[in-house]
């Protein structure tokens, strides 16, 4: 004899199974078979292949003839050669890339120069005026003579007569 606990367990599970059985016994919707058959007909007609005519069928005798085989092979070769011949003149070798290399952008954090090129400001150099050349030649010893030569270099001492 089962205990009340076991009976309760069995009842609950059988209740749950009864719910599943209700689903399992559900009638199929009306016209299901017809709809499935229609879908099958549509699908099979879409995938139907047109049969070969008898004289050209692959199982026919014409494929056994050596002449027909040679002709077919020649036709295939002609088509392939002709096709490649039309493609070949249009073929051009790849040219070198014309892409301009981009300047290197540093990955360092901080502000960037936004690709601006820095041009340092150049100073205006001193402009030397050209002294017009005199017609007389300079004396020879004038060049050798030092400027202020013979002049006293030291400053005059106080009390000393100037």
């Amino acid at each position, binding site marked *: 004899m089962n205990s009340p606990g076991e009976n309760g*367990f069995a009842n*609950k*599970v059988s*209740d*749950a*199974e009864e*719910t*599943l*059985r*209700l*689903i*399992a*016994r*559900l*009638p*199929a*919707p009306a016209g*299901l*078979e017809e*709809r*499935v*058959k229609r*879908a*099958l007909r549509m*699908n*099979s007609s879409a995938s139907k292949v047109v*049969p*070969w*005519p*008898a*004289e050209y*069928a692959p*199982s*026919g005798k014409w494929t056994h003839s050596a002449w027909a085989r040679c002709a077919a092979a020649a036709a295939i070769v002609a088509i392939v050669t002709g096709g490649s011949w039309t493609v070949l003149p249009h073929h051009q070798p790849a040219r070198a890339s014309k892409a301009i290399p981009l300047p290197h952008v540093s990955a360092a954090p901080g502000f960037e120069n936004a690709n601006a090129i820095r041009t340092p400001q150049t100073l205006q150099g001193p402009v030397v005026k050209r002294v017009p050349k005199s017609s007389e030649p300079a004396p020879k010893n004038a060049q050798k003579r030092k400027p202020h030569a013979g002049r006293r270099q030291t400053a005059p001492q106080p009390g000393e007569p100037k």
Partner: protein
Amino acid sequence: MEIAPSAVHDETRRQADEQTLAALVDQYASTLYRVAFSVLRNAADAEDAVQETFLRVLRHRDSLGEVRDHRVWLVRIVWNIVLDRKRRAKTRPETDDVNDLARVLPASGLSAEQRTAAAQHHAHVFACVERLPAKEREVMVLSAFEELSSVEIASVLGITESSVRSRLFRARNLMAELLNHARSSR
């Protein structure tokens, strides 16, 4: 133009295949629909699954002659299709709505209140079934089909008959626990 004998033969064979397929549809479409509905719980999805099953059969009609048990074979195909669909459409909610269940399940001779209570009970059971581990759940759902023996369930799931029995035993225990837990938490 003369028509090749092989073409005539192909046409005859194609017609024979179509007739066999039509007979299979007549015989098993409703069973397959119920199997699909028990997992998907949506009439349109279940019908789609049945159509897909027979389209697969159409594609592999050459192997029809090698099949011993067409019923189990078809149930196995539809089972794989519905599991695949359920896996892919996990985000879409099933027909867990109480009103939908009340509409789908038979409730003749019940008052409106009783019908609502029955629908809520069914929804609760389905929720518990969903919480079972996949292996146990599959066996439990298939065991509800009276036309499928444990040997046939084993064939559909690709396991041994003893595995079916042990999984069914575990599923019943887990269901009882889940139902008890749900009742005590109410």
